């Protein structure tokens, strides 16, 4: 410790630069992590956070800048070097060996041995147990990793980091896939780690988590360091302003519209063991939100309507005509588009060009005499990339090169190119930064103004309340609430979503 009031950072990155081809992912990466302190790193998608993390992880070698650990200059030429220096990364979705036990995962490649180079299981389990005890969590070291929740998997990673006596723990969006209780437990673990003297770096899109768990916050924008402040010296508005570099005029630009004819009528829809007796209507020029807790069956309902999943009961009527079950092509022909929950796996072919992704749902329309013209494909992509203001390098670059928000715009554009009468959007803004988020909201709003019917699934209550004309709430596969815009508020929705509301209420 130095005589100044602030301890010297245990890890300090300054002036870090990193480019991928023509893309400057990181222009000026700066962060100083101190022992016993939780330090939040925030910024929009594409601000360079992940690149910075990967430099700390030794995955990327910076093109410039300095990195000091414990006061000494270091160069990480690989993940092993970072680990050696005491830096451990906890990723959002850890990759464990599913068939090995928790303890085996923790000590992979470093198992304690007894005579004859045999693995000392008892000692391994014991050490794992003591680490979990230190963290204050109950996890059996001898159970196999398969079936662990994401939260528990993260704990295994944290335990692994501790077993390596990590001085710095970097958590890359750990809470994105966690429930409220799990988030709280993670915060408790973070506190324990800090008390033990570890430096924790925490990345999250949820600012309220940052304020609940961190003592310091660094803001990045466009690959550059913007500011770093103690948490009590700043506030949410300041941070958002620094993140986007401009004021957000309105987060939810919902325009009032007059709904027209019913476009989608879902009647007593059911799928054995998943959801049951789900009925609702979406009219032209109207946004209906499917709300509910994770696992309530919202995405499953959407997928059954679109025909990706089967359905066992009930019917789906589009523009007065019954829809054949289990056939996405029939749903598409009837004018339905589905922007799925998992952009990277379901929405886009990441290795295909942006232009080809735009065209992927319209291939048959691009045909002339059986042959598809590359030029008409590019024309389609160009039109939609401009209309949705997608930021890209070249249209033929792989979709993987886009930021999350721009990827989402491509998925939306892919369906808009078909001029659907109903667009189903599952989690329209998950994992998207604040700036692009309101852009996506504005796009949805303009679609509805143009007479499209939108069925939106969202786990974010502000988004549901801000955007929806009608809210249908699911709880354990059943409709527990159906509210008009002016009847819906956080309390009524949460009551219905947690099953405290009577059925067929409202």
């Amino acid at each position: 410790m130095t005589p100044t009031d602030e301890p010297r950072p245990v890890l300090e990155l300054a002036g870090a630069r990193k480019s991928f081809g023509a893309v400057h992912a990181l222009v000026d990466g700066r962060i100083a992590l101190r022992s016993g302190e939780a330090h939040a790193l925030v910024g929009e998608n594409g601000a360079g956070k992940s690149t910075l993390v990967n430099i700390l992880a030794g995955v990327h070698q910076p093109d410039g800048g300095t990195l000091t650990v414990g006061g000494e200059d270091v160069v990480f030429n690989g993940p092993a070097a970072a680990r050696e220096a005491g830096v451990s990364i906890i990723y959002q979705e850890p990759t464990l060996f599913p068939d090995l036990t928790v303890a085996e995962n923790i000590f992979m490649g470093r198992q304690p041995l007894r005579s004859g180079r045999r693995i000392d299981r008892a000692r391994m389990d014991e050490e794992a147990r003591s680490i979990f005890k230190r963290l204050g969590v109950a996890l059996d070291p001898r159970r196999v990793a398969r079936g662990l929740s994401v939260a528990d998997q993260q704990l295994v990673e944290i335990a692994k980091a501790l077993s390596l006596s990590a001085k710095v723990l970097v958590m890359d969006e750990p809470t994105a896939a966690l429930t409220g209780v799990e988030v709280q437990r993670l915060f408790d673990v973070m506190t324990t780690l800090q008390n033990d003297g570890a430096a924790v770096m925490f990345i999250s899109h949820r600012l309220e988590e940052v304020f609940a768990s961190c003592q310091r916050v660094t803001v990045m924008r466009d690959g550059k360091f913007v500011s770093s402040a103690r948490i009590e010296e700043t506030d949410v508005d300041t941070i958002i302003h620094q993140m986007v570099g401009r004021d957000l005029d309105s987060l939810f630009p919902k325009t009032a519209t007059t709904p027209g004819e019913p476009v989608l009528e879902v009647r007593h829809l059911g799928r054995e063991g998943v959801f049951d007796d789900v009925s609702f209507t979406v009219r032209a020029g109207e946004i209906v939100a499917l709300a509910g807790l994770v696992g309530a069956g919202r995405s499953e309902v959407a997928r059954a309507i679109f025909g990706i999943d089967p359905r066992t009961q009930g019917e789906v009527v589009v523009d007065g005509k019954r829809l054949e079950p289990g056939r996405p092509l029939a749903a598409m022909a009837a004018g339905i588009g589905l922007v799925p929950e998992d952009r990277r796996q379901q929405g886009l072919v990441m290795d295909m060009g942006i232009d080809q992704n735009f065209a992927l749902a319209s291939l048959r329309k691009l045909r002339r005499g059986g042959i598809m013209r590359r030029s008409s494909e590019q024309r389609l992509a160009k039109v939609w990339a401009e209309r949705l203001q997608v930021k890209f390098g070249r249209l033929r670059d792989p979709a993987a090169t886009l930021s999350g928000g721009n990827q989402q715009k491509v998925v939306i554009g892919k369906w808009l190119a078909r001029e659907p009468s109903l667009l189903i959007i599952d989690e329209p803004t998950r994992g998207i930064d604040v700036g692009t988020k309101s852009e996506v909201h504005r796009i949805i709003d303009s679609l509805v103004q143009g007479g499209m019917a939108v069925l939106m699934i969202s786990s974010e209550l502000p988004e549901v309340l801000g955007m929806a004309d009608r809210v249908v709430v699911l709880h354990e596969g059943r409709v527990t609430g159906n509210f008009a815009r002016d009847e819906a508020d956080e309390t009524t929705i949460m009551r219905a979503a947690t099953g405290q509301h009577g059925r067929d209420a409202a």
Partner: protein
Amino acid sequence: MTSDVQTAPTGRPDSVQRSIGWRDALRWEGGLVVVLIAVLIFGSAQSSSFLSQSTIFYAGINIGYIALMALPMTFIIMTGEIDLSVASMLGLAGSLMGFLWHHGWGIWPAIIAALVVGALGGALNGVLVAYTALPSIAVTIGTLTLFRGVAQILLGSLTVPGVGDPQFPDSMTKIGTQSIPGGALSYSTVLFLVLALLAGIVLHATPFGRALHAIGLQPEAASFSGVRVAWVKFCLFVVSGLICAVAGVLLTLQNASVSYTAGTGLELNVVAIVLFGGVSIFGGKGTIFGVLLSVIIFGALQMILTQTHVEAEKQLVITGLLLLISVIVANGRELLSRVRSRLAVGGGSR
């Protein structure tokens, strides 16, 4: 901004590096053109008759029926699957044709029966791969043995036409000795070229072809865009069975005889041709043009080896080497980074 995507720890970390566009594909094919020229120069140096009409004709006879099977194989590998039963299907189709001929069937009914069995055998593969989600490599190793076994049951030690059988009609077996009217190419070569052109159009300029790419790269995203993934795969295996049966009929007529061992082991040549042609073993990438170049190179090499009196067994070494080269070079970047990171990890844990 691409940083979040390029560096994301989840999913395939190498997906961006793997996303070689058409430029890289052209680079691969450019390499093939260079290899082809080198092979042709080498061949001409070995023998003055290397580029003669008869060499080209016999190269076509030797490689044409194998090349045919490479076309559906290209499609199947594009979707990330594989069909190892192709050569056994060829053997089964030829054997069935011989068996029926031996039992007095007319030539056309025998051929049609062989083609129908080809399609049915392909459908068996297709159902198992597409609708039960079994890995195609396991399924088709099974049918590889199965088809060959049925062929053996049909013909046993018999070579058809044997003693007492009529010969196959001259008008059809002439495809083994005569070129097409007014040209040096064999019938099998012409058939291959026509189908290759067709395959090229389908793969590169139709929605179906685009769907194949999407399935190979990301099957889930393909099905969320309305591609019927299982159905497409099923169809590919049926087509593969059918084309292999065509190859079996062709080979039988070319040789004017058939035994149950026809084409044994050729599945590896077919896979080698496809991979050497630049089609990614992971699916999603490749061109028919590359496969065409690869076919010509294999055909030319085979002729050189034969003309310099290298025995057929030793020629296997060449096939094996080309197979390895194509897999290693095509995925060189990825392999290199994998080896590097393994060394780094290995060094760290010791």
